[in-house]
């Protein structure tokens, strides 16, 4: 091969490399936002400062199997004597760190996440409003008599009777006390 041909090939390779580097996005910097569009939507509602680890793991398994988005939703309650649009910083002081802990855990497992906040006169009212605004393919709740973050039995009955989505209710497991709580937030958020 002549020296001219070598130089020509080298120049062409260099130009190709520069063009590729110029037009392609930097390696490893694709953001989660690009992966979250479309897909099935799994709602994971909660009311307190912790949720059952079982319901969280069930949501993760389903999301991975169905290539779905998990939508954790904090349901805030507005007392009757306050306007419904009232800001709720005290409840949010518990709910937001938990939302953050759930998001961090899901993101680290590669599961797409898109959080929501519902507001109503009760947890059920907040959930009803959320369901009126958006469609969800599945709802995962843990039956939680003491309502430490889940929904009560009346709410579950209402959910089964009224909501047109697949509903996965996880029965209480007294032997399994694992929870995801605000303590799980990595660093301050």
């Amino acid at each position, binding site marked *: 091969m002549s020296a001219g041909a070598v130089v020509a090939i080298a120049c062409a390779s260099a130009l190709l490399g520069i063009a590729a580097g110029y*037009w392609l996005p930097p390696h490893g910097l694709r953001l989660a936002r690009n992966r979250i569009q479309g897909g099935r939507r799994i709602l994971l509602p909660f009311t307190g400062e912790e949720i059952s680890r079982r319901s969280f793991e069930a949501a993760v398994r389903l999301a991975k199997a169905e290539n779905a988005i998990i939508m954790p939703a904090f349901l805030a309650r507005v007392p009757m004597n306050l*306007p419904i649009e009232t800001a709720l910083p005290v409840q949010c002081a518990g709910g937001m760190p938990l939302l953050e802990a759930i*998001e961090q855990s899901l993101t680290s497992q590669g599961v797409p996440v898109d959080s929501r906040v519902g507001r109503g006169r009760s947890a059920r009212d907040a959930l009803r409003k959320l369901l009126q605004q958006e469609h969800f393919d599945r709802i995962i709740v843990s039956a939680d008599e003491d309502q430490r973050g889940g929904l009560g039995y009346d709410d579950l009955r209402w959910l089964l009777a009224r909501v047109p989505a697949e509903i996965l209710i996880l029965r209480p497991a007294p032997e399994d006390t694992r929870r995801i709580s605000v303590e799980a937030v990595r660093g301050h958020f």
Partner: protein
Amino acid sequence: MRHRVVAVGLAVSARRGHLKVFIGMAAGVGKTYRMLVEGHAEQEAGHDVVIGLLETHGRADTARVAEGLPMVPRRRVRYRDTVVEEMDLPMILRRAPEICLIDELAHTNVSGTEHAKRFEDIEAVLDAGIDVLSTLNVQHLESLNDHITELSGVRVRETIPDAILARAEEVVLIDLTPEALLDRLRAGKVYPAGRIDAALNNFFKIENLSALREVALRQVAEEVGAKRLTTELVGSREESLAADAPQAVGERLLALVEPYPGTQRLVRRAWRSAQRLSASLDLLWVRLPGKELSGDEQRSLAALRQLASVLGARMFEEESDDLPGAVAELAGRRGTTYILIGRSRPARGLGRLRTPLPQRLMQRLPGVDVRIVAERSLRPSGENGEPS
């Protein structure tokens, strides 16, 4: 401090008066009483003291302690079909005492007076070189209003900007245990007999009062901290820092958002920072002119608005193709001290040659902090490790 202020200051008519605020967790803790006691002490020290406005709420003890202090009569203002009594600001300014006692700093004036709010009247009195003693309940502070509404279930409509309290030379907390306040209420020392039951069933619950007391104590502790910072630095090489210290009390955060899921994380982080700084939070979405939103983006935008509302943040939506310009305009208008942004999308093509957004913001907004919010879930697992 009060005596030093009066002795040094009032000889110079051009100087601004000094404001001293008696703050408490609720009505009935003794703010007005204490203000009147201090008024007497100043009078006995030879100063010219008048009561500009006093609200006794029918409390005999308060009325008794006011005796002996000259009072500027209230003026009668016609409002719709009634006549309302308000503080007579022009008379106070003409009377020009050394010290004026003006109760209820957060009061809203009836229309037809010089100012909409009493704190504005007080500003005029201070501008005239008159020292003012005034009273305030903690729930009237603007930044605490949402917090206290949620704690107590009662929304207070009359609020004052936090900057008013921050500018006061002295803030005195009138503290009382909730139990002691309830005893006073039951003994008829706060409200007349007919209102006691209603008060006990509504606002005056032990849990409400405990929470309010904690808020009041924290608020005053923060004020003291901010003032100590100013005092320590005055006269030193860091005088410029000292000049910034009062501003630090009134921090305002601005988070730049876009309608996509990851933005909520940024908003939550910004809100948490705002809570720590006792600051208010604004959100800004700069929309490209003519940009159509996809279904997912519309849902994300609705979720973002809902989150802002629940958190008590104010959301702005501007249309512009000049992002740093739109941010700078809003930041200037709102007095922003801190801007939070998420990680930028990777640039493509000619976009790589452009100066990154944080640098452009810092160029446009000197003196405003810019913070890039990281994604915590990308941190390597340490002791915290996997959430459990």
